[in-house]
């Protein structure tokens, strides 16, 4: 009986403390809701509306019909018209399309020669789910009016022809690891000093807010680049992940992404009061970063709302950048819009952090 009284006393105390920590209380409701919504939307292997381009050199009624048939599957959206196969390849390297339909000038003649491919389907194989979905539209082509068979289709899978998943996962994993460690490190670094009282000492010294913020993130930039090197080396060594772009570009992209996460961590540190809260908030960023960025599930398969949320996350842009550089050999010029988004994110987050970090105790 006495034991029960004591247990009860502790239970009541825990609940009281919990209800007074508003952030934690919010997480109790927020995390399940977030998970449910995100998993519900994001886990969608039945991908649709993948961006595609067409190079129709035949320009006949039959070729237009077959393109229309493929578009009607809704698996692809034809967003680009290309002049030739090289333009399709460029669009794919830039990440603008994941599928390309190439129809040679002698399409109608080839329909009569089943041993020759009448349609070439170019597929970005770096995401295996996407690759599989695009391949499925090959089956949609209707029986041609010239003979009783569908047109012969040749699928050319780019970047990951063996469809090995580590090839796709490892570059993305750099993003997950950096989001997790960089954001958490900085968030906790400032909050810890506040908890221990070091901050009260620091703000009475001539240190400026901007100096403190900058100095807090610099050491982690090096740690982040070290982690990148480790993942790349292990990826190449254990999983034979190719590096098609320039190594320096990989580091440039990573550096930008590291800075974005560190700045985000600083913003968190100006909001969180305890290390525990900082950890929870980091988790709140990490979860959508993994689920919505295109790392786990294809970005194109997600509904519009989820895509909009994903566009705010640095990880989404990093995912496009790192896959572009590592797997498709894209140059930074070809990916400049994603770089710009990360740059803007860094500037905004840094400004918010410096403005929010007040050198007073008010």
């Amino acid at each position, binding site marked *: 009986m006495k034991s029960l009284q004591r247990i009860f006393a502790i239970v009541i105390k825990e609940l009281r403390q919990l209800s007074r920590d508003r952030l934690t209380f919010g997480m109790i409701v927020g995390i399940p809701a977030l998970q449910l919504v995100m998993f519900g939307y994001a886990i969608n292997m039945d991908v649709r509306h993948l961006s595609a381009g067409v190079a129709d050199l035949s320009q006949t009624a039959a070729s237009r019909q077959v393109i229309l048939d493929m578009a009607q599957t809704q698996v692809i959206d034809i967003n680009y018209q290309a002049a030739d196969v090289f333009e399709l390849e460029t669009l794919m390297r830039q990440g603008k399309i994941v599928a390309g339909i190439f129809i040679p000038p002698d399409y109608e003649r080839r329909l009569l020669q089943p041993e020759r491919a009448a349609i070439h389907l170019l597929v970005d194989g770096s995401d295996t789910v996407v690759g599989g979905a695009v391949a499925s539209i090959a089956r949609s082509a209707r029986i041609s009016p010239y003979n009783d068979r569908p047109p012969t289709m040749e699928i050319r899978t780019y970047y990951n022809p063996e469809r090995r998943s580590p090839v796709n996962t490892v570059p993305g994993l750099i993003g997950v690891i950096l989001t997790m460690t960089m954001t958490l490190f900085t968030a906790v670094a400032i909050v810890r000093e506040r908890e221990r*009282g*070091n901050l009260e*000492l*620091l703000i*009475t*010294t*001539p240190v400026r807010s901007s100096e403190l913020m900058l100095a807090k993130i610099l050491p982690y930039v090096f740690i982040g680049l070290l982690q990148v090197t480790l993942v790349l080396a292990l990826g190449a060594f254990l999983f034979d992940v190719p590096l098609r772009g320039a190594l320096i570009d990989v580091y440039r992209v990573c550096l930008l992404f590291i800075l974005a996460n560190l700045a985000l961590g600083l913003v968190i540190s100006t909001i969180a009061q305890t290390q525990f809260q900082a950890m929870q908030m980091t988790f709140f960023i990490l979860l959508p970063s993994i689920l919505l960025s295109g790392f786990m599930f294809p970005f194109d398969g997600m509904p519009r709302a989820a895509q909009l949320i994903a566009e705010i996350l640095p990880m989404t842009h990093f995912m496009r950048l790192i896959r572009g550089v590592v797997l498709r050999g894209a140059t930074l010029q070809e990916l400049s819009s994603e770089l710009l988004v990360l740059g803007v994110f860094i500037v905004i987050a840094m400004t918010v952090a410096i403005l929010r970090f007040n050198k*007073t*105790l008010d």
Partner: protein
Amino acid sequence: MADSISSELAIRARGLTKDFGHVVAVNNLDLDVPRSRIYGFLGPNGSGKSTSIRMLCGLLTPTHGDIRVLGLEIPRQAEQLRRKVGYMTQKFSLFEDLTVAENLNFIANIYTLTRAEQKTRIPEAMERYELGRLTRQRAGTLSGGQKQRLALAAATLHEPELLFLDEPTSAVDPENRRAFWESLFDLVAEGTTILVSTHYMDEAERCHALAILDLGVLVAAGSPDQLSAGIDAAVIVVQSREPRKVSRFLDQQEFVHSTAQIGNILRVMVDRDVPDAADFIKKISSDAGLAVDHCEKVHPSLEDVFVAATQARKAARDKIE
């Protein structure tokens, strides 16, 4: 004229008020702290000592009031003030996972001391505050007294004109406290002004001048002697074999402000205008059948001043309610 007075003052505050929403932590505080002196803030916990210090060094923005510290307008010129003042927080705020030497080097660089300055001042500080043998020890493993010496060394490394010490000795044993105060007097001799908050009477006695704070209000200010002389009560020491009974009896008398027991001795604070208060107390106690051995009027201590000042306010508050 006014200029020469203000330049002799390290701190001048008028109408200093801090309002934390529903609580007024500091209420209409006027303060004049002369240079090269130790000025004390004496008051119980929650009397507004820390809040006042934080406002004076620009860490908190006052709700009302004007502050000038070392000729600078605070909080507007707080950044310029930072190089000229040192601040020792109530809680040890150096880095516990760094060694003594690493902490001092860090602080030296934060205050952008030159290499030459660092080379002379750090070893000097180590010697002065007896940290020499602890150089490589992590700050977290130091004793209370050692931590406090390290904190003082760090707070004075940039040779500030003014030093704010917020209850610096709360985690320190009496011997270390004495040594600590000796160091403070050394600093004052070199021209430093020190503002120190405390709730220890013996420390308050050592200050050149002090302000007694109670619930955010300044209730008395002056040198310890001035304060003792200016007390609005007389202090009678009563010796008795049954001090609890005597104390209960005296507490009921109109002219008695308060009684405090120290062993078998009672310190009784009474109205100043009671003639021959000592004899009077002895008489009425004996009449009530209580054994009183000895009664004597004594010079009021700072504790008496403190009790009298805070009790007068309490009585006034009770009356209003």
